[in-house]
């Protein structure tokens, strides 16, 4: 059974949104259904993505069921990125249980600092007892390990930020829109944990996203230009003490699975655009390698030569990526939506002749878990 994305919506990404979580989710769910041209009654299953820890309430989906139009439907939840909600929904459609699914995701970071919450992902008896260890300081350790291994410097990291934040300037909903930002300004922004400065760290914010998926039974009837899911790959690495932090092994495995399913042999040539979740600048370079856009250790060459600019040979994050705004659970789902927009020719920074797009979501400390979707314009 083939599955397609037939509708989507993204909320404004902002800090301290003057809207309740339920309102935000309601608005994106409604907009996505309108975008798809279906009604709430047509939807068979609704999957939401939010996390109890970030939301400050247990069973954080319970109050999103109304907003997501899920009452009396086959409802469930993914406690991580919204792209996992889309995966869950796609699997339900592939199983032939439903024909139309809605996946919604949100995080309101204003509620409580997600970086503080990252400490609760640590093993409690040793790592969590060290008050200096959190998502940012661990990412800094990962950055230095990767950079020293492959001769990457702070300028390369800053180039990633400049590319993404300039791209974001054209994206209406983005949080950090900095069309004239320079490498110097990135390097001179406040140092958090070296080598990571403030602008190299994805800014947690408030936001929501929704996608409507349809099975091949109905997708073409309902939608003029469905975007087909051609490949899916998911992989979770060891706990961070037992991983090689200088390499995104689980992303490499996830990508390999997704490429195989989509019949892609040469990613650099066959993938027209990639939308990835780079929570920290160095992770974008690491992802180039894990996604086989270049050989291991050569990620910096792609950024130095401008290959991942919108006009480059392998555009990455024309939407600005996570560095332009990180509504945690919605961030990966927004990558999926931006990848779908590229195939439909609707993106703000449109890549010419885009027929195959890659979307990536991550979860966990130092990108422990990774999910890759390959989208295409044909079933």
């Amino acid at each position, binding site marked *: 059974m083939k599955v397609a994305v037939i509708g989507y919506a993204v909320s404004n990404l902002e800090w301290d949104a*003057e809207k309740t979580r339920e309102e935000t989710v309601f608005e994106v769910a409604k907009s996505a259904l309108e975008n798809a041209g279906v009604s709430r009654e047509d939807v068979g299953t609704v999957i939401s993505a939010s996390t109890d820890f970030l939301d*400050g309430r247990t069973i954080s989906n319970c109050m999103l069921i109304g907003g997501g139009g899920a009452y009396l439907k086959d409802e469930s939840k993914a406690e991580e990125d919204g792209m996992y909600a889309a995966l869950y929904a796609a699997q339900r459609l592939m199983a032939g249980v439903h024909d139309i699914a809605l996946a919604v995701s949100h995080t309101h970071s204003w509620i*409580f*600092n997600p*970086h*503080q919450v990252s*400490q609760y992902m640590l093993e*409690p*008896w*040793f*790592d969590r*007892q*060290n*008050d*200096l*260890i*959190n998502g*940012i*300081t*661990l990412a*800094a*350790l*990962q950055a*230095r*390990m990767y950079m*020293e291994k492959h001769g990457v410097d702070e300028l390369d990291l800053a180039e990633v930020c400049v590319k993404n934040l300039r791209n974001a300037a054209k994206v209406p909903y983005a949080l950090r829109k900095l069309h004239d930002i320079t490498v110097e300004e990135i390097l001179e922004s*406040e*140092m*958090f*944990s*070296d*080598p*990571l400065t403030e602008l190299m760290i994805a800014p947690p914010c408030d936001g929501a996203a929704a996608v409507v998926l349809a099975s091949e039974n109905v997708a073409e009837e309902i939608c003029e230009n469905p975007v087909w899911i051609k490949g899916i790959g998911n992989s979770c690495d*060891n*706990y961070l*003490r*037992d991983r090689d*932090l200088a390499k995104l092994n689980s992303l490499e495995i996830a990508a390999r699975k997704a490429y195989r399913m989509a019949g892609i042999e040469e990613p650099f040539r066959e993938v027209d655009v990639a939308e990835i979740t780079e929570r920290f600048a160095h992770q974008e370079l690491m992802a180039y390698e894990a996604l086989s856009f270049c050989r291991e250790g050569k990620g910096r060459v792609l950024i130095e030569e401008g290959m991942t600019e919108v006009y480059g040979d392998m555009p990455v994050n024309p939407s600005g990526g996570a560095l332009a705004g990180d509504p945690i659970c919605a961030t990966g789902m927004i990558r999926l939506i931006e990848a779908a927009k590229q195939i439909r020719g609707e993106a703000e920074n449109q890549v010419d002749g885009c027929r195959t797009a890659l979307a990536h979501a991550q979860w966990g400390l130092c990108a422990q878990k990774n999910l890759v979707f390959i989208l295409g314009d044909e079933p």
Partner: protein
Amino acid sequence: MGVVRYEGLPFVARFRWNTGKIMEKFYGGFAERQILAAKCENCGYTVVPPRVICPKCSSKMNENNLVKLDGRGVVLSYTVVRKKLDGKGGFVTLDKPEVIAAVKLNGADSMIFAKIGDVDVEDIKSGMEVVPVWAEKPEGRLSDLLYFRPG
């Protein structure tokens, strides 16, 4: 534009976890200024702090798998922390930056994350050898291991 905000009730979650036998021994070893790891009999992977399931091959391990490490290690990566979280979601700028490092202890395959002290932040380098600094009177608690220093 003011909106009404609801502040959570004062609620502090001081969770208490059973550490399990193997971690009990690990903490106990600190009383003798000793760091214990678990060596998997099946695949040979040595993990510190010790675990009851081998992270590489998922074999079951117990106290019989414990081995003593000499405590020395090598810095694999480090970061100078300028902003610390205050436990309530706020960032605090440190007057005196602190250093944490990913350290590979001799004889272990996994790494640990530890504070590094007795060193100028400019002098710390990857590949530097470090040794543990213990509390004056160790009592078999996690707090006995103060930090690592070059040595």
